[in-house]
């Protein structure tokens, strides 16, 4: 296929290299420097996709991110939906097809890398057009630390799309010199293909750098595909240019209808003629450049249709010379053509009335309704916009702290003005640093532009087609029309935010870059109010779509969240343990032997512990070292129990409550010295409890001389559990008298093993005789191995969290956060014994006396035994009570509570459960029911302690 619409020369493409690609299966070619859109236009292909609701053919209407039409899906090299043909840089092997407004996510994992970089600068300049380059040069020359980011493949902005001269030479030469100068400045970071998509408080800007997308299949694997830049700047210069605004008329969506400035970009930057016969419809001077440039390039310009009664008198002579008819006081009222525009319907406009139209043949209809400054980033940073009646656009109002717009983004319309404005804004930023501008801070001079004729603000052309606005498209991506806005207003909507949501205008991929201000204008017209009263909808990040993969960066898969493993993790892995996540910890859940499933393994592990000895890696338990003369005072206040009476060498179980009296954590406390305690917390509660203690010490009791330090990672904890644990401990630690009288329950003893300090504590979370072994994590594997070796003759069985849960549940020991949910008091758990009556106060004490907390109908922790002796109740199951006659109460059936823990018990020979049940303790002995899979499972309510309620086993 020859590129019949490619110019013979000019543009910033490399004609010496040909790139092959396919679109909708058609094999096509282009050149380096092309976008997918320019390569398609060069092949004469305008119709790219169909619209989302109406299925109307749509083409390329813009030249960059403002295009509301040209949505494509890339298939090769990696599938990616919803990209704009205008922003996809062409590469060899690209395969894409047009999209009807919706794409398809890849069904294969994305193998590309994504990453993020933090960067801090004095001045961040967004946009490398004339204003941005001027600003960056000014700041860099003054010695400021500068970042310049620009979304295009090369710097220059609008200068790439025109024929401007600076200092008498093509402006692109100045761009090249400026880029070189910046590259030579050590404090300047200059990024192209980098879109600043979000602007936040205090100079924080997020930008997405597309590092290898343009390389296609040739992208090196070691490079991240996209990078999120987290930029923090003392001053931000928003030099993001302006988007051309269309005018709405009937059938304004046909392929071949394009913004006038976009046509100029395709011609000058990509060497593409967007058509052969053009009609140019404008309300301002800027489209005359497009008409004249296209004419010079060989396009037959049938007419410039200028809505202004007098047109642009100062451009008249040029048009006459070029043989371009100018029709002032005229508008385009409609078009013909299906896959491509064939005619523009042109009619005079006078006094708001449209005269009879005549059809002008064309394959290209260029439209310009003026320019909207790209105020997105300014507005996102909570800059307030003001409406300019002359330009028909919203401009940045007052400067936001540390952020200012420059150039076309601030409403400046001429090149000399943009250069000067960039420099002005950069100098203001320097003054705030403060830095002096460089002595030689010269900018090139631009030729004087002639006296422009004032633009006319025209949102829409009255619809004379009979379609009553239903084909006058405002938001092409949403297929939303003037008729839709009229319907919204007719339904009583006044707020532009409501109109947006009613019509969906501005909610598509392009976020209303071309439709937003039009909607404000048309809504204001329909309501008969000034546009400034209507305002705009809120601009929110991202400016252009950003993939979730880029935002996730490296935080996915195993790096999504830190993984904490204990010092003996390798041993567990070698033993074939099955692991589970407990918070960030990875803990062995059970150790299956060949042929065992979890149930079988857990029953075996439980039986081994209760009949002989088992060992658990309990290193994840939270450990807080509480030191200071007032350590005991602090603990008395945060635990419900009395801790100050604890003797050195002893251990006490304690419960912690919030001020509302609800249990937040529990654990044992070892008194190491008069002024030192080791407080143990649940695995999941470790950080929370440390924070809790810190909060009270810092905010309420700063007079307490006490410090709290996490030592969770420093100490490993290995509970050795079961009737033979004394034999194992005695064998490994001969320096300790393990006799019950010498080393009683709830006592701790220090010893050494080959010179390494070891602490032993008689703490039991299973009801069995048990010793917790504490040692510096450095020696963990050695000590663990000694314990395993010494226990071998008793068949010592390593067990995981599942067995730990069964053993503790058999004893009615609750897990805070599993058997409780933040509405459970110690009394509800049957732990009134752990609540001190001697202490005048502690956190939560007063709440226990609230009537709601003493209500006998509160939910209480009890045991449940399914009477069939077989059913394992799913945790979370609801519990109901039948009428005395055995009938379920009518709906809504009162729910008495729910199952919080449920397991098979080797010891009991049957499944059992713990549950929170309304007035549970008064129901012991009753039969309740659990609805399960369409039937009602009868369960007997029991006390929460089902194994060894008299505590006979704890001393072995």
């Amino acid at each position, binding site marked *: 296929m020859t590129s019949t619409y490619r110019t013979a020369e000019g543009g910033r493409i490399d004609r010496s290299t040909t790139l092959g690609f396919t679109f909708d299966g058609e094999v096509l070619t282009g050149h380096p420097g092309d976008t997918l859109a320019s390569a398609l236009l060069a092949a004469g292909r305008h119709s790219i996709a169909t619209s989302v609701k109406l299925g109307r053919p749509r083409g390329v209407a813009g030249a960059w991110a403002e295009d509301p039409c040209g949505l494509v899906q890339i298939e090769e090299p990696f599938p990616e939906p919803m990209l704009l043909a205008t922003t996809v840089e062409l590469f060899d092997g690209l395969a894409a097809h047009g999209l009807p407004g919706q794409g398809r996510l890849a069904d294969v994992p994305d193998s590309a890398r994504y990453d993020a970089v933090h960067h801090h600068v004095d001045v961040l300049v967004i946009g490398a057009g004339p204003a941005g380059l001027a600003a960056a040069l000014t700041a860099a020359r003054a010695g400021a630390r500068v970042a310049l980011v620009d979304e295009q493949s090369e710097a220059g902005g609008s200068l790439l799309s025109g024929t401007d001269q600076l200092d008498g030479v093509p402006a692109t030469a100045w761009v090249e010199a400026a880029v070189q100068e910046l590259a030579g400045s050590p404090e300047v970071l200059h990024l192209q293909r980098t879109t600043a998509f979000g602007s936040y*408080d205090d100079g924080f800007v997020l930008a997405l750098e597309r590092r290898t997308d343009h390389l296609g299949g040739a992208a090196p694997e070691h490079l991240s595909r996209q990078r999120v830049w987290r930029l923090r700047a003392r001053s931000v210069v928003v030099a993001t240019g302006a988007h051309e605004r269309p005018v709405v008329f009937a059938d304004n969506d046909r392929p071949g209808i394009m913004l006038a400035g976009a046509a100029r970009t395709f011609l000058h930057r990509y060497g593409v003629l967007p058509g052969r016969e053009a009609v140019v419809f404008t309300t301002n001077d800027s489209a005359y450049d497009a008409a004249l440039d296209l004419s010079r390039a060989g396009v037959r310009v049938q007419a410039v249709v200028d809505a202004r009664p007098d047109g642009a008198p100062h451009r008249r002579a040029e048009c006459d010379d070029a043989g371009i008819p100018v029709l002032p006081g005229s508008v385009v009222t409609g078009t013909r053509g299906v896959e491509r525009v064939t005619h523009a319907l042109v009619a005079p406009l006078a006094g708001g009335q449209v005269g009879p139209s005549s059809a002008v043949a064309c394959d290209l209809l260029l439209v310009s309704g003026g320019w909207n400054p790209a105020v997105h980033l300014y507005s996102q940073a909570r800059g307030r916009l003001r409406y300019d009646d002359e330009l028909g656009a919203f401009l940045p109002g007052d400067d936001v702290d540390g952020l200012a717009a420059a150039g076309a983004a601030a409403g400046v319309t001429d090149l000399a003005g943009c250069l000067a404005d960039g420099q002005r804004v950069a100098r203001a930023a320097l003054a705030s640093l403060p830095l002096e501008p460089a002595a030689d801070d010269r900018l090139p001079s631009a030729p004087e532009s002639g006296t422009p004729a004032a633009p006319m603000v025209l949102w829409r052309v009255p619809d004379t087609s009979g379609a009553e606005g239903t084909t006058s498209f405002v938001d092409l991506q949403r297929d939303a029309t003037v008729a839709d806005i009229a319907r919204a207003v007719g339904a009583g909507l006044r707020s532009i935010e409501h109109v947006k949501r009613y019509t969906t205008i501005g909610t598509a991929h392009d976020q209303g870059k071309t439709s937003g201000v039009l909607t404000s204008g048309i809504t204001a017209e329909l309501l008969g109010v000034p546009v400034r009263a209507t305002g705009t909808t809120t601009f929110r990040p991202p400016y252009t779509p950003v993939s979730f993969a880029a935002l996730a960066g490296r935080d996915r898969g195993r790096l999504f969240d830190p993984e904490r493993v204990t010092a003996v993790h390798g041993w567990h892995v070698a033993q074939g343990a099955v692991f589970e996540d407990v918070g960030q910890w990875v803990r062995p859940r059970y150790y299956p032997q060949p042929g065992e499933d979890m149930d079988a393994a857990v029953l075996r592990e439980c039986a081994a512990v209760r009949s002989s000895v088992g060992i658990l890696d309990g290193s994840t338990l939270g450990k807080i070292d509480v030191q200071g003369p007032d350590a005991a005072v602090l603990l008395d206040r945060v635990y419900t129990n009395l801790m100050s009476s604890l003797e050195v060498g002893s251990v006490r179980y304690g419960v912690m409550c919030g001020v509302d009296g609800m249990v937040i954590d529990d654990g044992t406390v070892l008194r190491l010295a008069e002024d030192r305690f080791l407080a143990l917390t649940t695995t999941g509660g470790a950080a929370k409890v440390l*924070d809790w203690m810190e909060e009270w010490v810092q905010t309420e009791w700063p007079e307490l001389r006490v410090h709290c330090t996490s030592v969770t990672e420093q100490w490993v904890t290995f509970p050795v559990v079961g009737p033979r644990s004394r034999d194992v401990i005695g064998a490994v630690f001969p320096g300790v008298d393990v006799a019950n009288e010498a080393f009683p329950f709830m006592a701790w003893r220090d010893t050494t093993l080959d010179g390494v300090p070891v602490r032993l504590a008689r703490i039991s979370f299973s009801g069995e005789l048990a010793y917790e072994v504490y040692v510096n994590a450095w020696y963990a594997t050695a000590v663990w191995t000694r314990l395993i070796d010494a226990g071998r003759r008793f068949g010592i069985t390593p067990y995981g969290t599942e067995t730990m849960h069964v053993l503790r549940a058999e004893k009615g020991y609750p897990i805070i956060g599993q058997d409780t949910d933040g509405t459970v008091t110690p009394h509800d758990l049957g732990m009134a014994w752990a609540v001190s009556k001697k202490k005048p106060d502690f956190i939560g004490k*007063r709440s226990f006396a*609230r009537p709601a907390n003493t209500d006998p109908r509160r939910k209480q922790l009890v045991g449940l035994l399914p009477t069939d002796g077989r059913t394992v109740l799913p945790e979370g199951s609801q519990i109901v009570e039948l009428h005395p006659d055995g009938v379920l109460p009518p709906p809504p059936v009162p729910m008495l509570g729910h199952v919080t823990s449920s397991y098979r018990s080797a010891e009991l020979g049957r499944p059992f459960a713990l549950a929170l049940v309304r007035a549970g303790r008064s129901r012991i002995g009753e039969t309740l029911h659990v609805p399960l899979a369409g039937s009602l499972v009868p369960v007997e309510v029991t006390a929460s302690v089902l194994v060894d309620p008299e505590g006979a086993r704890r001393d072995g």
Partner: protein
Amino acid sequence: MQLIACPWCGPREEVEFSYGGQAHVPHPAAPADLSDEEWAHYVFFRANPKGRFAERWNHSAGCRRWFNAVRDTATYRFEAVYRLDEPRPVTP
């Protein structure tokens, strides 16, 4: 993402901080002497103004110290930060 000026560390990104609710709500000295209603006010009731609000903040991913701040809940702007042992500053 705004910067919050920790009185100890200086300006840091807001993700390093956690919120602690209304400031200057001391734990009652003698809870036992309070009526249920008075106690409930301490436990459950907090102001929720639009505008300036004295709040507790914790530099939880930094120095882990608590401090107070006066923040405008309508603009999110921090107007003052101060240590716990300092009185609430008078903001203009």
